[in-house]
């Protein structure tokens, strides 16, 4: 019976539902989203690729010519790469809508522009 009274009480209040695709609430500050490389800072040491617990980061070449491939479909969004980076070149975005129809478009490539 206690629940019926509760249900009637909440019937008169504002709904709690977030109407998501139409209204988007930004995630809180410090949200761990997709990592993004700042290639001006990156020195191509490959530490992020070695430390990644699920092998989501691939580095091709070393040093200035290094090219980084990030596989979002493997990423755990743990933020260890950003924490380990000696040059602070990796920032975590605060987006979370990564859904795609195809896995091939989930690879992000980063290359130093000359």
């Amino acid at each position, binding site marked *: 019976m206690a629940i019926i009274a509760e249900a009637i009480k909440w019937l008169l209040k504002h709904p709690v539902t977030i109407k998501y695709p139409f209204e988007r609430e930004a995630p809180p500050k410090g949200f*761990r989203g997709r990592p993004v490389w700042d290639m001006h800072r990156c020195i191509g040491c490959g530490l992020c690729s070695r430390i990644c617990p699920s092998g989501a980061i691939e580095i091709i070449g070393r040093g200035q010519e290094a090219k980084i491939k990030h596989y979002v479909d493997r990423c755990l*969004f743990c933020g260890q790469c950003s924490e380990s980076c000696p040059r602070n070149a990796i920032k975590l975005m605060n987006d979370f809508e990564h859904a795609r129809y195809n896995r091939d478009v989930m690879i992000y490539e980063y290359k130093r522009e000359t």
Partner: protein
Amino acid sequence: MSYGSIVKVPFGPQHPALKEPEHFLFEIDGEIIVNVKPRIGYNHRGIEKAFERRTYIQNIYLAERICGICSDAHTTCYTQAIEDLLGLDAPPRARYIRVIVAELERIHSHSLWLGIAVHEIGFDTFFMYLWRDREAVMDILELISGNRVHYAMNTIGGVRRDITPEIIPKIIRSLDFLEKRTKYYMKALRSERTVLKRTVDVGVLKPKDAVELCAVGPTLRASGVKNDVRGDDPYAAYDEIPFNIVTDDGCDVFSRMLVRCGEILESINMIRYALDHMPSGMLRVRMPMAVKPGEAVSRVEAPRGELIHYVKSNGSTRPERYKVRSPTLANIPALCRMFIGQHVADIPIILAGIDPCFACMDRLVFIDVKTNKRKSLDFESFSEMVRKQRNFRLA
């Protein structure tokens, strides 16, 4: 009353934590369960072997993904084991933050479980309200750690993120809300006839059996045995924070509900105390890449009970052997004892009673031994069927 023929009812297999997707084969005489055989392993991924292949840092994230609901308990246990091997201690502030996150996780896990339990007895209104209010604690966790489920707070030698002064008022406000709601839910549970009829004297586990079968966590405490790793073998900052161990003498599913509600209230007080008394200082100490040879045992009170990790190191950057025993596995012998002599209709709620993260147990096959006919039923319609039967019997 005996019907003279034993019917076998396989139940399962779907269940999430490390090695605990359970499949149960019930032997039923009429409507009474006479025997039960567990068969687990549908979610066996071979994590223990995988631990030997990854470095100590990578293993933190692997340990986190043993179970999604007690992810913080697993990482705490893992990092403590490694800290024990290395001979370093986490700084005081880090230990307090560990307690706060662990207790928040306990609140989230227990309210999740309570929702699932009332859902199993067909009380979906209650379930929806519980899960709506559970979002409050999920929001705090997301605010602190940056993710709703896998917090990734612990690292070897401390924690990765601080609880900043700006977010403390928000946490306190949510805690007040949660406390009010939990007290209300406890009152509602005690007065709802539906809940009482379906849970009192169902799935009884006597204290003697509970100790003999090595049950852990709320299952053990609801049988009146005062046993809690936080109090008996304190880790993190639990030796500095006062708290009561909640027990209940009912030994049935209802007292497991009450114990978990009581633990939510206790956790709220612990978090308040920890926030008030949090020492300042650094968050983590640096660890060396390689760990010296040795072995360590680490124990943590996860939301579901005692969790134990064992690590053996051979001096390289990877562990030589890593062993995890998660609490649900420890509760399965006790669970099998609970089933004996109960009605088929009570299977879902008894199974939910030990909190085996129930969300996806969704397929059943009935085999009638006499006619050898197979009938497939999904979990939902099975619950529906048993609900109807049960109501019929009550009427």
